[in-house]
């Protein structure tokens, strides 16, 4: 049985500048990656077919195919071919997910698979460029409104500038870091990832509110309050990371893309949140408590 104790951090050893430096540098790097991506590719993230339009087929077969062989089955160019671990009880030994861009006619690639006796068409999904563009606009509105609403609530809860802006900055960084890593890993933005980013706003704020609440609204010294908040907050975040990590692994093995995406983004975002809450947010609060209030 493994042990899990939240370590006690001696914050007095570090200056505010030292503590803030790490999360700010990471955020800076993340923003640089996203901005660089924007300049080079024309979009801050690589968008999947949910946003660009395109077609995805799920094919079952008992034969073994290489990606090149799958490509050659279609007259149309494929964007990607992904083999899926089907497990022992599956209907077919092999399963492939083939993605096409939006120039492809869904009916025609479906027919290609249906007319091949060796292949069974298990599923297909398609998004037209029209809907993709609509999804993109709505997703940007959705995330924007959610973030704005969260910021307003943060200010309504604490009614002072520094602790509230600490929550907002930390949530912002929690979203940007996974997006940057996504770009580097070559993961494309899907609707599932948008859901994960919104979930991240909710999760990220949890531990921040907890910390602010302990430090600002409770009796007791700063370090004692921080320690108590960390006991609870780190447990919360680590529990969620553990759950999301196994979900990401298991969903990837099963080929359930939506859940795998959500799991991965949350693991990345919650890990970033640990850093942001207990380095960035704590420091801002310490500055506010010891120096900001005096002004």
């Amino acid at each position, binding site marked *: 049985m493994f042990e899990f104790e939240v370590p006690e951090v001696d914050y007095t050893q570090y200056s505010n500048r030292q503590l803030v430096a790490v999360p700010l540098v990471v955020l800076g790097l993340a923003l640089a990656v996203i901005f660089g991506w924007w300049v080079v590719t024309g979009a801050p993230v690589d968008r999947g077919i949910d946003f660009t339009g395109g077609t995805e087929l799920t094919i079952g077969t008992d034969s073994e195919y290489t990606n090149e062989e799958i490509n050659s089955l279609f007259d149309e160019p494929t964007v990607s071919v992904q083999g899926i671990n089907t497990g022992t009880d599956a209907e077919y030994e092999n399963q492939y997910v083939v993605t096409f861009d939006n120039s492809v006619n869904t009916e025609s690639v479906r027919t290609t698979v249906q007319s091949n006796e060796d292949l069974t068409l298990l599923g297909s999904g398609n998004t037209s460029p029209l809907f993709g563009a609509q999804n993109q606009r709505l997703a940007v509105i959705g995330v924007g409104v959610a973030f704005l609403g969260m910021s307003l609530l943060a200010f309504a809860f604490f009614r002072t500038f520094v602790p509230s802006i600490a929550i907002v900055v930390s949530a912002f960084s929690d979203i940007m870091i996974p997006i940057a890593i996504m770009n580097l890993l070559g993961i494309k933005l899907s609707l599932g990832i948008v859901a994960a980013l919104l979930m991240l706003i909710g999760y990220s704020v949890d531990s921040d509110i907890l910390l602010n609440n302990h430090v600002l609204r409770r009796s007791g010294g700063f370090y004692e309050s921080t320690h108590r908040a960390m006991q609870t907050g780190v447990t*919360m975040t680590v529990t969620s990371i553990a759950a999301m990590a196994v979900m990401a692994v298991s969903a990837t093995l099963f080929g359930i893309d939506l859940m795998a995406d959500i799991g991965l983004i949350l693991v990345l975002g919650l890990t970033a949140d640990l850093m942001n809450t207990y380095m960035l947010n704590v420091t801002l609060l310490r500055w506010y408590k010891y120096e900001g209030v005096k002004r």
Partner: protein
Amino acid sequence: MSQLRENWRVVMLVTLLILSAVALFVPGVPPGTTGSEGAATDRSTNLNYGIQLSGGTRLRAPIVGITAEGINVTEADRVQLESTLAEELDIDSIDVRVRPRGPDRQMGAVEVVTENVTQSELRTALGNNGYQPETVRDGVTAETRQEMVRSIDEKLRTSALSGASVQIVNVPGGENFVSITAPDRDREELVDILNERGVVKIYAVYPGGEGGSYVREEVLQRDQMDDISASTQSEQGNNWAVFITVRPEAADEFSQRMVDAGFGDGANCGNYNHSDIQQTEGDGCLVHTLNGEVVTARGVRADLGESFANGEFSNDPVYIVPTNGSEQANEIALNLEAGQLPAPLDLSQDSGASLDPALAERFKQNSLVTGLIAVLMVSLVVYARYKRAEVVIPMIVTALSEVFILLGFVAFVQYPLNLSHLAGFIAVIGTGVDDLIIIADEILQEGKVETGRVFQSRFRKAFWVIGAAAATTIMAMSPLMVLPLGDLSGFAIITIVGVLIGVLVTRPAYGDILRSLVLDED
């Protein structure tokens, strides 16, 4: 009694759990389901699965059409304007629809439901006829959208598709599109059904066969009809009927057929045998069938017969199908209309998904396994942290009961579950366990919970954080609930409902449970 009152939160939790169990497992409890159906389809629960978890096809497509709005056109000018515009734009008159001013709309509108006409062409054509539209836009009128839903729904029902549904989805500031979901059908089958023609037939049955036997002939086909409406026959009081305007170019041919059938001087229908579309006596009948079954069979009045014979019918070519009541009249009109959708769907612009039932079934099982592994992982981490069974076990049970109540809710409202909803369940477990950890840490902190007052104060402190966190989660999810972002709306709804159930019922109840367990121990 007092103990019950003190632990009212636990009482409420148990009540909700029982209600959920009933909603989930007792067949026929959710409104709109029947007990026998539950038994017949070997469903072990009342849960309703969407296509991602049970297979089937979903199509979302925009409606083809452009609409000119703010036109001062009245019912009297409708038919004239429709045919003039059709001529001018060189399109079929069935593809032009004038929505005159009336009780339901302040200003008239004209819509053209074909891809061959541009907005400026429509504006010019209207201008040539002395109408100045305020706006010309893509899309069709709200009335047409509703008719689309009705006629697609009708098509789905007549094709024996169970559990199929159709709705209009509004995109704020954008287009409207039609969303159709059909379980147990693949994409090609669904498209075929949408393209299927109507099933109302109009026959003339008359003596003319060998040896005086009666023959049956279809005399008016869908493509010969122009306008179809169900309303009362004003001159005959409250009799409901379907009024079919025969297209001008087909009217003469129709008249000729009627004369050929011997109806030129009227016909007495006699006692028509409704069961087998056979006739043995009388002059002949006009027989109207719906899906092969006879709706009504009537003779032909002498004056109507004469108008066929002398060609007067073509001046006002309205064929009247008498019916038994308004419901039947609407059904026939709808079926005739459904033969051709009020406007075509732009299937080249569709978004959709189609999934094999077997693969969907595996998704269902695998996501259940994934969820269970995640819950197990949570239990392990929490146990490693607290190492006290009386803290950890109620925590897991509470988190799971939240999911159970949520499932009960979903079963009760018969919301079709998809993968995105399962992700919502995971989000709910996640925030739930977070909150339970906050409650546990607050209540278990140093200093015993001897008095109710200490407990209450600690509980309130914990609850402030939980409430604030829940408010932010709901705030973050609420845009998705309103925006039609595919599956994400369902994800947001599940998460919000789950957080509400959690914050209002289950998570506070955990505080009570923990208190009694901790107090017992001390």
